[in-house]
């Protein structure tokens, strides 16, 4: 190894040689591009909102290139028959004769999407399809578990965060220290969180069982028992999510004017009534976006489950996204990328539908885009 722990002058210069031109290049390029674009839009096309479009252009290009194009690619995959033995039809370099007469088609899409839900033999539906290898990996089971996972997590995130925020909103000393300590789980790199907790839930060497034995409880084989493993990942995710709510709700509480409470107190309202009729309604503008984001994030929580349990034991701690990851990349992967793409689109639409229904019914986003 060269230099100190692999770090030598050459390495530093080489990296800087890539990064500095990149940062300068992007920023200068953006300015030049915006200048040209603005002139084009404002002077040539005489658009009223030329400046707005100009300001949006860099973000739009980044998102189009690295999000919209991949999304499109993914949809294309769902319309393909890409699997292990047809791989050479889709790869520019793989060897072998391609035996497909067409690469993309509606027939493939129909098959891929049907496979997500049903098990089909000879054109007959003979039951729910298995997304992985056990009967526990059918779509309804996974969806049910995902909903359970999301609901339990969000409820505990919210109530835990609210309790802490209410306490933190009191006149209390050492507030800064408490806040700094309580946000720690939020700041930990996800890989490290998951691996550390995995070790701590180890039946023999984790502190969880050591503590339980210390107070006279039977040790639990946390990651080998399906129910216990699910409890363990839920616990860790609750631990991860509380700081976000604490911060959001504390911000909300601090913005509520004291006058409301004073007025309520004069009218003889008790603490519970003040909470119900003043605190909760005024927290709403914060709560709705926070819950929306939390539901989305929890529903999509992949790394924790994949690293802590891998979806096991017996594939019984998988939620939809971890099942998708396992189907595409994990031990149970059958390299059916067309199927995996269809599965990912289904998951995406479930979340999308939820978001649309929730957002319209709660009116939460009016705040955001109608201001």
């Amino acid at each position, binding site marked *: 190894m060269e230099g100190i*722990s*692999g*770090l030598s002058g050459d*390495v530093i210069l080489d*990296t*800087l040689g890539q990064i500095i031109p*990149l940062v300068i290049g992007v*920023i200068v390029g953006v300015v030049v591009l915006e200048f040209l674009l603005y002139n084009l839009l404002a002077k040539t096309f005489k658009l009223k909102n030329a*400046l*707005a479009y100009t300001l*949006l252009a*860099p*973000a739009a290009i*980044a*998102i189009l290139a*690295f999000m919209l194009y*991949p*999304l499109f*690619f*993914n949809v294309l995959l769902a319309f393909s028959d890409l699997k292990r033995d047809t791989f050479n039809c889709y790869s520019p370099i793989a060897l072998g004769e391609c035996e497909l007469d067409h690469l993309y088609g509606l027939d493939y899409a129909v098959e891929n999407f049907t496979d997500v839900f049903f098990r089909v033999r000879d054109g007959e539906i003979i039951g729910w399809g298995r997304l992985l290898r056990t009967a526990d990996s059918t779509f309804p089971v996974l969806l049910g578990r995902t909903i359970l996972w999301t609901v339990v997590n969000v409820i505990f995130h919210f109530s835990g965060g609210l*309790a*802490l925020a209410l*306490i933190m*909103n009191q*006149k*209390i000393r*050492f507030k800064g220290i408490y*806040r*700094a300590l*309580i946000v*720690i789980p*939020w700041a*930990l*790199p*996800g*890989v*490290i969180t998951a*691996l*550390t907790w995995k*070790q701590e839930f180890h039946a023999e060497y984790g*502190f969880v069982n050591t503590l339980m034995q210390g107070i006279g409880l039977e040790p639990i084989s946390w990651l080998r028992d399906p129910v216990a493993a699910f409890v363990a990942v839920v616990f860790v995710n609750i631990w991860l999510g509380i700081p976000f709510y604490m911060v959001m709700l*504390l*911000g*909300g509480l*601090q*913005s509520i004017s*004291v006058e409301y409470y004073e007025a309520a107190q004069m009218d003889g309202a008790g603490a519970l009534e003040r909470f119900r009729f003043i605190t909760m309604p005024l927290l709403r503008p*914060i709560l709705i*976006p926070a819950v929306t*984001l939390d539901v989305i994030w929890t529903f*999509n929580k*992949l790394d924790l489950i994949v690293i802590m349990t891998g979806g096991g034991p017996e594939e019984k701690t998988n939620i939809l*996204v971890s099942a*998708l990851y396992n189907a595409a990349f994990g031990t149970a992967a059958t390299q059916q990328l067309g199927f995996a*793409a269809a599965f990912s689109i289904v*998951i*995406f639409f479930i979340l999308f539908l939820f*978001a649309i229904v929730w957002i319209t019914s709660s009116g939460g*986003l009016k705040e955001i*885009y109608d201001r």
Partner: protein
Amino acid sequence: MSTITQPKPTAVRRQQNGLTSQQIRAVIGAAIAVGGLVLMVANQMNVAFLLVGLLLGLLVWKPFHGVLVAYSIISVYPVLRIVSISLRPSTGLLSRSLDIIPAGASLQSYSNLFNEEPFLQWAWNSLSITVAVSVIGVAVAATGAYAFSRWRFFGRRPALIFLLTTQMIPAGMLVIPIYVIVAQLGLTNQIIGLVLAYISTAVPFSIWILKGYYDTIPPDLEEAAMVDGCNRMEAFWRIILPLSTPALSIVFLFNFLGAWSEFIVAKVILTAQSVMTWPLGLNQLIGTFQTDWGKYAAGSVLVTVPVLLLFMWQSKYLISGLTLGSVKS
């Protein structure tokens, strides 16, 4: 930060034999703590009893502090455990001990990490990527969010919803397509490829936060400046950006954290040893056929503690930067 607190409750102090309820609780709390001390002495100096006693005593004496201290411990303890594993000697990495400073503590794992692995190179690569992503990401999001906040242009609502929609894309779904694009640009195994991929995933959420924050800044301020002869961009630069420091630092922090610890995309795009970031490097240490918990824990501590301190230091901005945008001023 301005802290608005509730009015002092009309404190009802029950006078009983000259003792306030606060004093009674203090006495009971102290008694419980002493009980813990006695139990500790009775149980071969098991410190756990004393700690539990102290905590319960605090809960009785000052319930709010008790709850916060208890929760702080829950937050911090797993981190302390990593520190403790990193200090364990190589013959006792797996141990049932709960000591924070393990018996036979040594810095051997740290020196092994530095001498046997190119750890500093991993950290340097991560840092370069992270700084580039944070700087470019904030710059791109700051102007984009300004457009969303101040103009009612065609396509604004669908675009805002699309930004939220990007958060719903199942993780892992875009890994293969992103690799294909990066490969087509010839940027695999180069930190630039990863920087571009990270920026695009960081920008949507950044725009959301910044837009919310800009909305709370009255447009009158810029208009006044423009009357004074500034053009729109000068007004943005001189007035909006300085006022948005909390939100900008939060966005910077989030982009920083995200890029610093990202693993799944990095794993496909960077495969050469010389460009590896620390999550890839550390993951290698605990691969299927090789497990080195000592080095892994030492590395985890070294990459976690700096960002943790950064986060804790910036946590004063978290509240204002993140939530002000959601509340009408």
